[in-house]
């Protein structure tokens, strides 16, 4: 199987080949370097003139791409590190995310301003890059009306998610790629000895213009689950490892719900699982305070009331990410911490 990196890189090649309106903008994206994480490798050689290496001006080139999108192109922006999204926050929040709704109050379909823009960026820690190159900052953008946020994982087809986002969505979209996903092999969910998968949201969604799946993952052959885990991005990998060990070492059976759309929030697949298990652990790499997990817990509680018997979060500590390996491991969620959290939940009943 290809790696997630290969899958995303192939998707960018396909997007450029299939639609001449697609452009790539970002820092150091030209070959032979091909981007800081190599997701854009080979593109500038294959598509000269359509891969634009930019000055160090995140706000400037994000703004440029917004203007291009408004005028009918389909630009894809790479922000080298997700931490640098803050530099483009005004462009994303006060410009890109606003325009469709703000401008189109009484306009016919043909007169509407649309903004097909994908902003890709790597997030996350575990590479020792320290406080300004390791963060998981998407929580700051999840509550922005008008901005779609997607996050691929190693399950299924991460490249297809990106390709569909570029070619089919007509609204600004943030595509969050955890750095540690890049080197993972894509998991073919139709052939696996260890897990069995179900897919939700496999119909084209009106808001997105395409189908962005939510996955349900169970240990193959396990008894009915007593707990629901939910996670996205690289946390899915850790959650699966925990799921396996919980089953084999502790006889605790959990099922895992994996969204690829973070905003707008999709609750249905998770709620279906929670009706079965009555217990929820949300796992996220972002900081705990007022994050994605808080929203998921709030919505689960609103929807289920007393039928949700146990609900907890596992997230990064509310600290910057330290550079030192042992300290960084303390701050971030891990397989061990997931297992401990699940065991505590089951002990508490």
């Amino acid at each position, binding site marked *: 199987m290809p790696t997630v990196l290969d899958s995303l890189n192939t998707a960018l090649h396909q997007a450029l080949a299939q639609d001449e309106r697609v452009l790539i903008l970002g820092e150091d994206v030209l070959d032979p370097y091909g981007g800081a994480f190599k997701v854009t490798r080979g593109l500038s050689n294959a598509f000269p003139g359509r891969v634009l290496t930019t000055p160090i001006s995140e706000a400037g080139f994000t703004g*440029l*791409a917004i*203007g291009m999108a408004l*005028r*009918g*192109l389909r630009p894809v922006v790479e922000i080298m590190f997700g931490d640098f999204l803050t530099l483009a926050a005004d*462009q994303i929040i*006060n410009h890109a995310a606003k325009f469709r709704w*703000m401008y189109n109050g009484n306009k016919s379909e043909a007169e509407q301003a649309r903004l097909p823009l994908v902003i890709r960026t790597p997030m996350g820690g575990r590479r020792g890059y320290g406080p300004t190159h390791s963060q998981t900052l998407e929580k700051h953008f999840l509550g922005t009306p008008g901005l779609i946020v997607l996050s691929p994982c190693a399950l299924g087809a991460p490249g297809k998610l990106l390709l569909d986002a570029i070619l089919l969505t007509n609204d600004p979209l943030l595509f969050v790629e955890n750095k540690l996903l890049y080197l993972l092999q894509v998991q073919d969910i139709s052939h696996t000895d260890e897990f069995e998968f179900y897919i939700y949201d496999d119909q084209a969604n009106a808001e997105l213009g395409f189908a962005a799946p939510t996955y349900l993952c169970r240990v193959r052959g396990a008894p009915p689950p007593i707990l629901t885990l939910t996670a996205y991005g690289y946390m899915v990998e850790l959650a699966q490892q925990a799921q396996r060990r919980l089953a084999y070492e502790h006889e605790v059976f959990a099922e895992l719900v994996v969204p690829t759309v973070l905003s707008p929030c999709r609750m249905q697949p998770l709620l279906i699982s929670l009706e079965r298990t009555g217990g929820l652990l949300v796992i996220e790499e972002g900081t705990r305070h007022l994050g994605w997990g808080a929203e998921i817990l709030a919505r689960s509680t609103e929807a289920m009331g007393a039928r949700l018997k146990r609900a907890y979060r596992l997230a990064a500590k509310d600290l910057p990410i330290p550079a030192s390996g042992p300290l960084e491991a303390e701050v971030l969620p891990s397989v061990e911490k997931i297992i401990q959290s699940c065991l505590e939940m089951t002990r508490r009943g």
Partner: protein
Amino acid sequence: MESIEAELYRAMYRIRRFEETVLDNFPKGVFFGTTHTYLGQEANAVGVLHHLRREDVVFSNHRCHGHFLAYGGEVRALFAELMGKASGVCGGRGGSQHLHWRNFYSNGVQGGIVPIAAGAALAEKRKGTRAATVVFLGDGTLGEGVVYEAFNLAALWQAPILFVVENNHIAQTTPVELALAGSISARFAAFDIPAHELDTSDVMEIFPIASALLEQARAQSAPRALILHTWRFGPHSKGDDTRPADVIARLRQSRDPLTLHGARLSQSEKEAIEAQAEEEIQRAFQQALADPYPTAADL
């Protein structure tokens, strides 16, 4: 067929009366929020935008009414937008600062629209439309860093764009001397963007220069800048002018684009234009006033 002098006078007079009508009626509670009027700066918008072709693109800022009307926007739709009516330019969602109609876009955050304008210009260049893009910014906006990112990118990638800096010498209440180091033209020179500087309120001085710069941007597919030293006669928004009354009175006497340009028309021609424009403005105001508000279903 109306002479170009008469056309320009009409365009400026409509803006003047629109803005005065807004300020006169604000205390009556017919408008939402606030407003930023273009009184005194009319020659800039009209002198530049009168040259636009249908495919050209315009980006504007918080002080956008004059730009919108000079672009050809409807008076009634603009009044209605300020009143929060369903018939407004954006159905009442945007209000005074957030307009979009055809190829006209404005936003209320300083500076952010400038790289977007450069991107639009580059998109038109790639599409081969030969459209030029115009973006208006003020002296106050020159404090925003993203403006210089946009200048750099526009020059680097040769965007067919005209940057129009309207230096009205005051940002809300802060005089330009307290906010701006160095010179405005040197900012463009640093990026090798040819800039033309005018200190005038005469539309007939702005008109030919703007035409030449737009043609250069279009023909050479490259950025150009027009720096217009100008004066606003009204407050930043409604009642927040801290300048002494005699200073404003002197400005109105020496730098009024309507007086300067009106002198070129015969009294009867001028009066006819003014009467027609007045009638148009008042009718549009009354129509907008009678238009319904949007409802929850319009959200």
